[in-house]
């Protein structure tokens, strides 16, 4: 497990179902055999095997949510069915040792069989590929998607619930909730009447574009709607993972420090809008709102800021107008693209 943030793959569930990872192929390196008669040879062999399981430890806990609202958990072991296809090539030559049969097909004295392979690919290129697919799908259907990021406890879910109630059906919308565990946040959203799907990332510290793509398919989004993605509460990792959204929206609450944008610059740099939340508490705190905004602008000179309070309603209209403008733009762009 990562010694920085505890992040690792595994145990991801979307709406309670395990996510199936792609197949893996393993290759084995050169083997060197010496036979009893003194001959020796080396050979390579590769074998493919398909893994269809969620990664992690040998035992997994799975949570199932049934349609009637009951849920249960169970543990199970992994049974790996490996289909080994070994292709051996055994060039025998009595009394000789052959080094010239490696992939390079030749051997220069003193040189190994190795060769160089240019990759030149971004480490996040897999994620970015999925994100582009999501972005294409959303654009085609006129859907305006926001990726809401913040520390845990900044008031994201409360703000979402208030926003959904205030929009009052004027915009069709759906919510994807990301948390390591529990269905609590999705349940809070569903109580507003809006469709919501919970992604549990298990050990993961962020949502990635693959998970969100699956969730989009499962939700069956309406055309010309709003998609709100509430990321895992974490100001570090979600900054790097594009989900295909139109904008990242960072939520900073005034009960945190003014210097958070400087401490976690990646997130505030990746965001187009910062919501300074819980502003109704400012009279009781020593928090300097102007300093917090100045810090955010140091990291990202273009970031838009709205001072907001889910409790008092301050700034809500500006935030909802910003959402509606984004929705109209997404719809307008769809009709331009389709003509």
């Amino acid at each position, binding site marked *: *497990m*990562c*010694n*920085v*943030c505890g*992040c*690792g*793959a595994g145990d991801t569930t979307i709406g309670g179902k395990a996510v199936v990872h792609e197949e*893996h*192929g*393993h*290759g*084995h*390196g*050169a083997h060197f055999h010496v036979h009893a008669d003194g001959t020796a040879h080396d050979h*390579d*062999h*590769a074998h493919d095997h398909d893994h269809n399981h969620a990664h992690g430890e040998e035992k997994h806990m799975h949570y199932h949510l049934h349609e009637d609202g009951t849920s249960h958990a169970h543990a199970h072991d992994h049974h790996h069915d490996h289909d080994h296809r070994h292709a051996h090539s055994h060039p025998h030559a009595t009394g000789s040792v052959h080094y010239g049969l*490696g*992939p*390079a097909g030749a051997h220069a004295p003193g040189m*190994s*069989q*190795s*060769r*160089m*392979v*240019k*990759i*030149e*690919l*971004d*480490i*996040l*290129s*897999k*994620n970015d590929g999925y994100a582009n697919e999501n972005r294409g799908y959303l654009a085609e259907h006129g859907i305006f998607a926001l990726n809401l990021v913040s520390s845990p406890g900044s008031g994201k879910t409360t703000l979402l619930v208030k926003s959904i109630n205030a929009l009052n059906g004027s915009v069709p919308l759906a919510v994807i909730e990301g948390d390591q565990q529990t269905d609590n946040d999705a349940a809070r959203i569903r109580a507003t009447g809006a469709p919501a799907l919970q992604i549990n990332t298990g050990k*993961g*510290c*962020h949502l*990635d574009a693959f998970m969100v793509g699956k969730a989009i398919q499962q939700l069956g989004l309406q055309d010309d709607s709003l998609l709100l993605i509430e990321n895992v509460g974490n100001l*570090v*990792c979600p*900054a*790097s993972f594009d989900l295909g959204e139109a904008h990242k929206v960072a939520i900073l609450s005034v009960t945190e420090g003014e210097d958070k*944008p*400087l401490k976690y*610059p*990646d997130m505030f*740099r990746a965001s187009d809008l910062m919501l300074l939340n819980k502003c109704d508490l400012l009279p009781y705190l020593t928090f300097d709102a102007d300093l917090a905004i100045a*810090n955010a*602008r*140091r*990291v990202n*000179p273009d970031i838009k800021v709205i001072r907001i309070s889910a409790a008092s309603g301050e700034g809500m209209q500006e935030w909802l107008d910003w959402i509606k403008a984004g929705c109209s733009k997404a719809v307008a762009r769809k009709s331009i693209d389709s003509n």
Partner: protein
Amino acid sequence: MHEMSLVEGVIQLIEDSAKTQNFSRVNTVWLEIGQLAGVEVEAMRFCFDLVTHDTIARDAKLEIIEMPGLAWCLRCAEVVNVQALYDACPKCGSHQVQVTGGSEMRVKELEVE
């Protein structure tokens, strides 16, 4: 940051490449990591040994090429060095700087057999 996920991404790229380029062993992996990428190089090394253990890249050597942080200063109208995303221009002190390099996270090349 999520170095574990990043190393898993590296392994995926290597395994994909092993299929198309027909190699079965990786001796060295070169990564380009920018100073501004938010990646802790030491954490990356630590995770690399753990994550590669049961893969084609087990026992592979990890070489990390650190790329300098560069930014375009609007006021000076030139490229300057920056150490962090919120750094001011080291010449004029302006914050009107646009990062142009140093956020790379790339698998550059592999030595394989």
